[in-house]
């Protein structure tokens, strides 16, 4: 009797367990999605997650959002211990590094629908030369020259026609003569390095500074010529003094002189147009043309993306993660919610939706259009990796502060880059 009773109890427990398993076979999946950003991006991304969850009740997205501070460090730690979120936003420059380290899932193997994207844009952004999509560009962006049109018109400066790099000196002089408190360019070390060193070198050689096989494509003389150009930018007062700009880091919108409208143009990115405009909303802005060398091998300037979004290679639910990304990129609903919180969206469909809903920022759009007309290719890879970037930025600072002659800086950069190659190759 007691055996039977025990048996019955055991069996009923087993049956209950069986039922629970069957119920969970309906699969309640939880995915972690992490990104960085500010208020606007957080609110909008959360709204897209809500919309997705409403349409897919069996998938729950656990949002992990923060500011950019500590974001990369956290990802590095998570990769090292295999606890990275299923879906995460990636800084453009880190994309190739992550791909090489094998932390990105091959999105081409999922059901993600790529048909809304321009194939060439996808190839250039997120394939890392592999032929498969390992990361999805979140938008279109590029280097940009944001021009304070009101001031430019007052002084009589036109940056809407093609011009060469020497043109800056002519304009710089004109600006200083017009008003000794004004400068032609507001340039900080980080953005200046991308603008005056990396883009310059792409025009000179048609190649990134360092190829992915650890070939250094730039000679010491070429560096010296470039650094001499930077020295002149500061000596001839085309750019505001480096020591003045230093406290603001890459936050040009916090520079009181920008807010007071004392610069003709800011050296930056298309993605910073919004904040620059908001800092001094009383004047008109346009996106200027970019400088070009006569003897260039390539235009150097290119259009890429402000960030990527990727799927973690160790995710347990790649199909569901791809489903979320499909919703995020390929539905009008998501496009309307997101607007331009990650720059101008990457698909024609989303761009149309933004225009229609009136959430497309005209200046961002204009800046992206300018960057689309150049034929340069992204130098994302070793040239943009953390160590090489800091070597170039140090040189930019040394030269812009006048602490080092262009020749010495060039010699130092070449020797440091060779050390880097020896250490890593």
């Amino acid at each position: 009797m007691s055996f039977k009773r025990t048996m019955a109890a055991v069996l009923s427990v087993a049956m209950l367990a069986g039922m629970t398993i069957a119920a969970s076979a309906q699969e309640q999946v939880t995915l972690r999605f992490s990104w960085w950003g500010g208020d606007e991006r957080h609110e909008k991304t959360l709204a897209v997650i809500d919309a997705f969850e409403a349409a897919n009740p069996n998938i729950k997205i656990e949002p992990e959002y923060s500011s950019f501070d500590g974001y990369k460090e956290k990802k590095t730690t998570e990769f090292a211990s295999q606890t990275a979120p299923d879906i995460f936003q990636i800084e453009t420059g880190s994309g190739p590094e992550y791909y090489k380290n094998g932390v990105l899932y091959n999105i081409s193997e999922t059901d993600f629908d790529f048909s809304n994207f321009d194939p060439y844009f996808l190839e250039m952004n997120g394939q890392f030369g592999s032929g498969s999509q390992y990361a999805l560009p979140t938008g279109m962006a590029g280097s940009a020259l944001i021009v304070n049109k009101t001031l430019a018109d007052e002084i009589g400066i036109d940056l809407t026609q093609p011009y060469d790099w020497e043109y800056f000196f002519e304009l710089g002089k004109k600006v200083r003569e017009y008003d000794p408190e004004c400068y032609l360019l507001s340039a900080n070390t980080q953005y200046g390095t991308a603008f005056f060193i990396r883009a310059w070198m792409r025009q000179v050689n048609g190649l990134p500074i360092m190829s992915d096989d650890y070939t250094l494509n730039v000679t010491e003389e070429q560096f010296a010529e470039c650094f001499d150009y930077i020295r002149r930018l500061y000596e001839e007062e085309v750019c505001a003094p480096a020591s003045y700009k230093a406290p603001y880091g890459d936050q040009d919108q916090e520079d009181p002189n920008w807010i007071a409208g004392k610069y003709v143009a800011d050296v930056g990115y298309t993605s910073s147009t919004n904040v620059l405009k908001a800092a001094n909303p009383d004047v008109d802005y346009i996106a200027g043309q970019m400088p070009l060398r006569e003897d260039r091998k390539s235009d150097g300037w290119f259009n890429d993306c402000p960030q990527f979004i990727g799927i973690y290679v160790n995710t347990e639910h790649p199909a569901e993660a791809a489903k979320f990304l499909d919703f995020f990129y390929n539905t009008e609903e998501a496009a309307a919610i997101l607007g331009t919180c990650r720059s101008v969206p990457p698909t024609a469909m989303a761009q149309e939706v933004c225009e229609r809903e009136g959430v497309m920022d005209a200046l961002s759009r204009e800046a992206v259009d300018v960057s689309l007309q150049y034929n340069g290719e992204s130098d994302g890879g070793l040239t943009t990796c953390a160590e090489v970037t800091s070597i170039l930025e140090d040189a930019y600072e040394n030269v812009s502060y006048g602490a080092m002659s262009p020749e010495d800086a060039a010699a130092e950069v070449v020797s440091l880059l060779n050390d880097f190659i020896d250490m890593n190759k």
Partner: protein
Amino acid sequence: MTRKKKKQIHEIIMYIILILVGFLMIFPLIWMFFASFKSNEEIYGSISLLPQSFSWEAFVNGWQGIGGNTYTRFFANSALLVLPTTLLTVVSSTLVAYGFARFEFRGKKPAFALLLSTLMLPNAILVIPRYSIFRSLGVLDSYMPFYLLAAFACYPFFTYMLIQFFRGIPRELDESAYIDGCGTFRTLVHILLPILKPAMFSAGLFQFLWTYNDYFNSIIYINSVKKFTVSMALRLTMDSETVVIWKNVMAMSCLAVLPVVVLFFFCQKYFVDGIATTGLKG
């Protein structure tokens, strides 16, 4: 001039200097408070300290936080993280320090050398190994990493500091306690702790401050926004590609420093005591 008058003038001058320096020190806080009433244009465009108008709007808006997580939650999280961590640190560090300072046991010297060497390890080196351990224990995205470190005296700085204090207390005190029949634990609790109080307080205060202000460790161990502490929440809204409404950030920063400022005023005595005395009295 009488000697009394001379002294008075001397004092007046001293006070003027002290007030000036004090004002200089507290100026950033005052500026921050008034900035929570200013628009972005006013913050950047004007050097006047006082805002054009007063409204508590920034405090109300700032408190809303982001995505349904308000500052009520962030402050509660901070309390939940900081208070147990501080308490555990003080208890565990005191016990370990007592052991090192008062007892002879095999391997004491190498163990002490080990303790000292961990004191010299920079945080950056510890992050990944610690993270891996906590992952194996399955306690990520919770406050356990902080509690565990605190509970097992993994803050060598405090242990070392307390050891030094213990060494300053004459052994005769312990011995007379033993003669009167106290065990080792009662000796610690009834005889040594009262003397050690200033040191423990300063360890507690510093641990409170450091944990409360810590950003890096929190961002590494905690993923969910609903578990964020105040220091992490403050950074949520700041991004170079978004227009930051600074007055909201400033308003919340004012509230965030409040606990620390209040704590300092109430525990001033211990801050100074803890640093100045050696624990030896009379």
